[in-house]
């Protein structure tokens, strides 16, 4: 493909410009992917180099350090205590005690069981005298995996803290050698609201994210490599265990599913993915342009009662979706009030198949999503439109531009530039828009070809609702849900990466400041 310089580009006609942009977008994809791989490689390489450096540094600290430092390698915080940094010393020591105590009492067991995920499931025995069956519980794979992962996290935290402890000693020696004074506990505390203030501020949010987002995600990624499902749940003698890449092979193989005759998982995944992307595209852009349009209509000079119009629209944000969407879903049922109204007016003879026909259902969810989405867009667009300098329009008008030209030359480019990142997040958000699909159709109508042992799949099912169905469906295939979840992540990440590399306005956050 020919690349143009800036000057050449400006000379092109409108159509050519669009074609050029369009093509260069796709031409950019391989490069973006390559960059990703390179970045990954650099990351791994960088990590290797860093670890090497760290080890070398630790060794040299030990060799060159005094006896206080050397003892700190075993008794964390000893150096700090010996050098009068009582607060730090106590914290280090306390952490070590807690860590060792935990590892001895519980952590060792969890860690030891992690490779096998348990050996003995529950046993059942018949009690003759009472004429009942009694269950005795032994290992529990779920708990082993959960606490095993937590223990690993704890170990990483310990290694990090230990490393800090070594560094502290090295630093303290250096400072003392140069004749300066060490920071006291009071200094430490003061720095936490000043030059180390960011650490104070981030401590709580990051702990929360670590425990309630990162840890669960790590856990669920690991589940994709096990056979955890409803029948391997810790109540039967089937403990779940590691199965390697089996689940990915099942999901991604193009050969037909179990038994040889049904559609393969990958084909089902493909179908659902394609609809998910179509849905996300329409859901994002219909809302975007219509929302902008409504905002412009309300903002137009001479339109009165602006606040009233806005408030009416904004009601959809304020009312919980499970109420409004469930109601709307019933309105469009075959015997719902929409069909009833249309029939009583004599406009239609038969009920329209809003939820029964695949195409109707897909169009209807997109349309109803407009109802949900426009208010947000209207609010955002209102703010941005007000920020466009009025003199731009004025000079355009003097040049004889009609409203449409003003829109395409000024309003739209400005909006697109400012809302680029928003468009991307709302696209990926729509891919995972569980509520709208679940409450409106629950995925219906069913897709006969795609439904298989993984549960029924509907024409309006998104990957996220399919994932939910797999989790709560007949066989509770958690492992399969995890695989789908990981694939959703891959798709979203790829899209984001490509767009990130193509859209200029996302890249440089400092530009906005």
């Amino acid at each position, binding site marked *: 493909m020919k690349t143009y310089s800036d000057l050449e580009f400006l000379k092109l006609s409108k159509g050519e410009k669009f074609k050029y942009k369009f093509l260069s977008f796709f031409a950019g994809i391989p490069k973006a992917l390559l960059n990703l791989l390179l970045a990954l490689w650099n990351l791994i390489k960088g990590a290797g180099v860093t670890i090497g450096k760290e080890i070398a540094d630790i060794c040299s600290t030990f060799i060159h350090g005094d006896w206080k430092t050397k003892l700190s390698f075993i008794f964390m915080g000893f150096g700090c205590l010996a050098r009068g940094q009582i607060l730090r010393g106590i914290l280090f020591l306390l952490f070590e005690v807690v860590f060792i105590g935990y590892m001895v009492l519980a952590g060792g067991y969890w860690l030891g069981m992690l490779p096998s995920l348990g050996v003995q499931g529950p046993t059942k025995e018949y009690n003759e005298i009472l004429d*009942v*069956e009694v269950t005795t519980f032994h290992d529990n794979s779920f708990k082993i995996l959960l606490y095993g992962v937590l223990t690993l996290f704890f170990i990483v935290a310990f290694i990090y803290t230990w490393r800090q402890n070594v560094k502290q000693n090295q630093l303290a020696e250096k400072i003392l050698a140069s004749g300066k004074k060490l920071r006291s506990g009071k200094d430490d505390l003061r720095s936490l609201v000043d030059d180390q203030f960011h650490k104070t501020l981030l401590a709580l949010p990051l702990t929360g994210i670590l425990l309630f987002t990162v840890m669960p995600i790590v856990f669920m990624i690991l589940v994709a490599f096990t056979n955890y499902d409803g*029948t391997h749940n*810790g*109540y*039967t003698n089937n403990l779940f265990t590691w199965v390697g890449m089996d689940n990915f092979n099942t999901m991604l193989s193009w050969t037909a599913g179990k038994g040889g*005759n049904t559609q393969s998982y990958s084909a089902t995944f493909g179908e659902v993915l394609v609809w998910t992307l179509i849905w996300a595209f329409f859901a994002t852009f219909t809302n975007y342009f219509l929302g902008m349009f409504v905002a412009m209509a309300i903002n137009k000079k001479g339109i009165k009662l602006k606040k009233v119009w806005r408030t009416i629209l904004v009601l959809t944000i304020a009312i919980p979706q499970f109420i409004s969407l469930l109601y709307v879903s019933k309105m469009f049922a075959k015997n719902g*009030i929409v069909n*009833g109204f249309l029939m009583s007016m004599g406009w239609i003879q038969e009920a329209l198949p809003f939820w029964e026909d695949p195409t109707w259902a897909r169009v209807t969810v997109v349309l109803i999503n407009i109802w949900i989405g426009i208010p947000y867009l209207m609010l955002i667009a209102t703010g941005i439109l007000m920020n466009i300098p009025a003199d731009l329009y004025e000079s355009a008008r003097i040049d004889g531009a009609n409203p449409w030209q003003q829109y395409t030359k000024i309003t739209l480019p400005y909006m697109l530039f400012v809302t680029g990142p928003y468009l991307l997040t709302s696209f990926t958000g729509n891919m995972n828009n569980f509520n709208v699909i679940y409450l409106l159709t629950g995925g219906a109508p069913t897709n006969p070809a795609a439904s298989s042992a993984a549960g*029924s799949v509907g024409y309006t099912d998104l990957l996220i609702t399919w994932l939910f169905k797999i989790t709560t469906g007949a066989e509770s295939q958690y492992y399969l849900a995890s695989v789908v979840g990981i694939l959703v992540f891959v798709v979203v990440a790829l899209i984001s990466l490509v767009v990130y590399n193509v859209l200029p306005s996302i890249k440089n956050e400092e530009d906005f400041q």
Partner: protein
Amino acid sequence: MKKFLAIALALVMTLSLMGTALAGDLAGTYDIKVWVAEKAVDLTKQQIDNFNKTNDAGITFNATVEAVSEADAGTNMITDVEAGGDLYCFAQDQFARLVQAGALAKLGKKAADTVIANNDAGTVAAATSGDTLYAYPLTSDNGYFMYYDKSVIPEEDVDSLEALIADCEKAQKYFAMETNTSAWYLAAFFFGTGCVSEWVTDNDGSFIEVHDTFNSPQGLIAAKGLKKLVDSPFSLSSSEASAFASDAAVVVTGIWAYEDIAKMLGDNMGVTDLPSFEVDGQQYHIGSFNGCKLLGVKPQEDAVKAAALHRLAQYLTGEECQMERFEALSWGPSNVAAQASDAVQANPGLAALIKQAPYSVPQGQIHGSWWDIGKVIADDVKAATDEAGLQAALDNYTDKISALFTMSDDVKFGWTVIGAVAGSMWDKDFPMTKVSASEWKSDEAFEMDAGTEFKVRQGLSWDNNFPADNFKVEEAGTYFVIFNESTGEVSISAE
């Protein structure tokens, strides 16, 4: 160290429990959680109070009764068995899932005998996997029949599907039967033409075999009947009573909707069995499922508590409580004595169920995925334009059913003996073992009379079987069966 402590502790606990267990003394106060349908919460509380007062073992239950719909109990239990109800009601379709998940405690021998003696056979079968009884039958009314609006449907039309559809179309009212979203209702057409879908489970609730004839000439007839309904613009895939309040004239649903519909239609309510449909000049009465609700006991660690819970479960599913439930909630009893009572016989809703009974099929155990697989038939049938299309819908269905059973390669490529051997009548496969590069030999020797016939087949299917005509034994004796894989030759040998 920790392990040792745990073992010691367990030992002490077992010993002390043995003490009470030996005495068979169940007296004590137990905190339990009970899950029942929202409607039955108050009644169940009352019944547990009664049990506390009247039981002779000194058991007192401190029960928290929560409303959990019987349809969701399975999913909820599987979410976390440990946190589930100690006693819980569930619809029978979830039975196998719950057994597989280990969420049901087996009944003791005495309890099982009592249950089998006092409840109708269909409900006992519903609570049985393999030869083990896992739950207590609670009702025997989970079937469906037809409610209709007398102001729209003339009395003489209620026996004919075609007439009903015509009446509905004329009045611009809907015929509601949940064919497209529920296999439970959809199957009615197939049962009507004599098709079956019978599933076999082992003692752990796993499905080991299926006998399904939906894909057959009879099934094709059923599909044609179904097409008549789903093709009508006034068919509505719903089993909600409230369809009557929004333009339905016929709703196929169950006894649970009786009171709601009575309120909605008043004197215009008609209740009867399902209609017949006509294909090629022949009438087929639409069938139905006949299911039940069950009461399960969660597996317990403490034998004494378990025994007390089973006592309560027996009480709650006994004749007295079932009659109370019938009186308060119109739930049809599974207890044989209660079924025979005059009051039950006189209930109009149950009467319709009884009228439908000759055409109904006991639900038994059905694979959890079947509900998802079955329900797509209706959409497929609706999309079909000709007979080939209908056949394709059924083929699609069978493919998915067969996909439910994964065979290991050992089974898939292994050979077995099947025939009139060892007391079986072509209904059991006897394993063979590979003895050389191409030769297979049966694991056991069979006593065979002259004229005994058998075959050797691969992968438990008839796709590959030898010899083409059955092998006939000429001389009585005890033989091993030998099969040569490369030549396809079957022979017998005394050693």
